[in-house]
């Protein structure tokens, strides 16, 4: 316990030793102030295209964009740099296959995404094979005419 009034005034050393949590407090203060006025500090929500949401395994955004915003889930959408390597545009299904996200592929299928018949389906399955996304391939094989085009896929280059 502090023994006298003089010692109750903190020294620079005491401030240095105890100061770190005060920095975090400034963050808390900003959060609470922002919260009070309806701002959202430290809660930046980026605007996604449907394909970006699929690539970033953002099931919530995938669902919101399809169910609420009625975004067309069967066409190609832009993809920002870095999410799918060099790919800049992809359908949501293609993005999920490239990102090896079976749960997103399943979700897209449940939300009404159509796997195109014929060569586009085979291309999608071959993309899954190339991406070593076995779970994704299993899901895709269960769509359309249920044929297995894997024998015709180009050899995987590792």
């Amino acid at each position, binding site marked *: *316990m*502090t*023994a*006298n*009034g*003089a*010692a*109750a*005034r*903190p*020294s620079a*050393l*005491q*401030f*240095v*030793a*105890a*100061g*770190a*949590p*005060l*920095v*975090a*407090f400034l*963050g*808390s*203060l900003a*959060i*609470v102030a922002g*919260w009070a006025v309806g701002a959202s500090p*430290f*809660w*930046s*929500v*980026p605007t*996604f295209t449907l394909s970006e949401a699929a690539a*970033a*395994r*953002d*099931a*919530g*955004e*995938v*669902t*919101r964009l399809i*169910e*609420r915003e009625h975004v067309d889930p069967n066409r190609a959408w832009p993809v920002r740099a870095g*999410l799918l390597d060099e790919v800049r545009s992809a359908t949501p299904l293609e993005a999920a296959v490239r990102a090896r996200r079976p*749960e997103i592929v399943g*979700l897209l299928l449940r939300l009404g995404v159509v796997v195109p018949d014929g060569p586009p389906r085979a291309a999608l399955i071959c993309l899954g094979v190339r991406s070593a996304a076995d779970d994704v391939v299993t899901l895709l094989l269960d769509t359309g005419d249920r044929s297995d085009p894997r024998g015709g896929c180009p050899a995987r280059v590792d």
Partner: protein
Amino acid sequence: MSDASATGAPFASRRGWRLAAHAYAVVVALGIGYFIAGSPLQVSEALRNMMAVQRTDLYELLVLQFTQGGFLRPLLMAEIDIPFELAQGRYFEVFKTIHVAQVVLAAILFVNLRPVRNAVEMLAVPFGLALLFGSHTFAGTVTEAFPINTFLTIVLCCLAAANLAQGPPSRRKDAAAVTLFVVAALTVETGLLVWVCLAAAWIAGFRGVSGRALLVTTAALAAYMALRFGPLHVGAPALVERSSGFGFRVLDPPEIIARFGDNPLLFYAYNVAAQVLTVLFAEPKAGVWVLVRGLSTGDWLLRDLLGVAATTGATVLIGWYAASRVPVWRRGEVADDDRWLFVAAAMLAGNAVISYPYTKSVIVSPAGTFHALAAAIAFGTALERLGRARLRPALALAVVLLTALSAAWTVRLVGLHYRLREKAFLTRNDWMFVTVGRPPAEVDVRMYPAAGRLIEQLREEAVSMRVPNPVFDPPRASRVFEEAW
């Protein structure tokens, strides 16, 4: 009230510092609450519990909970049922408000245990709160909700018991202490720690709760044990109930039975020891030696090293404080701070013993809370000594160590916010995969159409809630900020 003060500070000033400490605590707690409120209601357990209280009336719930094997938690579902009924459909708002209010109350009750009479004592408050909220034992009380976090309820009950124990006695305090114990004990097994807190505080010399009230509470504890192991046949949890960490990994119930079925004592002893060690050293976590495993394979993470270093540093600081007090104790002088140290030790022992069936960091959240209190006391004493000492190498080293310690705990505190933000993303995603009729939404909606509407409402709310995607966070963040174990 007298202005005479050990600090020499006038009463108004002392009151000002105390208010400042509480205001600080509220802001820090609300900062955490902001991230709790940003997340949809949890799917697993929360949805199941909400569906259970929706289709069962309160009386039936109480009877059911009294007759299940392994656990005796009759008030647990009642505490969910009452706000559920009062919510009138506004479940998210009600349960999130309760969760945030609980965090704020925990901060207030924690700060209330410290005398804050001047600026130096105030400087120890941020450190204490960083320990309280930044500890891996606390994380599970805010990253999870069922939809009320029972572990946080028990942390609150223990803090409330400690608050009752200090100061002058009164009949109202006695009645509150007994009620608190009964409610906590019938909510979840760790609620029995309220008795440990009250008894340890009384033995240590706190007289806020009278010996008579402690006797009544002890009789209630005896009645609980007699009922549990007698007519109710609840017994203790079996080995098949939960997965649990052992060594370098988590064992599933069949593995636990295969290894310890014939001799569970070894397993229980490991769990008790692991729970003590995790509070004092942050290793093992939930029974798993995460850092040791990482160091042995070369695949260790900074977050695990930071957690162990910060927690061990706090424990060493407590040890230093205790050692520095030994000469005073030998003279028969005991201060309130010393008494809290004793209570913290008792809580650690009691909490570890009570979690013998399986290990999980959040189970020892009450012990973690009192570890934070003890560390805050030690830190405050160290700070006060810094102010009196002349500059010399030992002092410089002390400043460096205390600065490093408070900085490490600040990172852990910030890490809690990061994990809550990540949890919001994961929880929202979970809702997108909920299928009626399958776990955790296994309900026949033709028989219980209201359950179907509840699931749909909560899912719709989750779809509407925009949450940040961690894919855009700095890649190193998850290596620095700890996961909840």
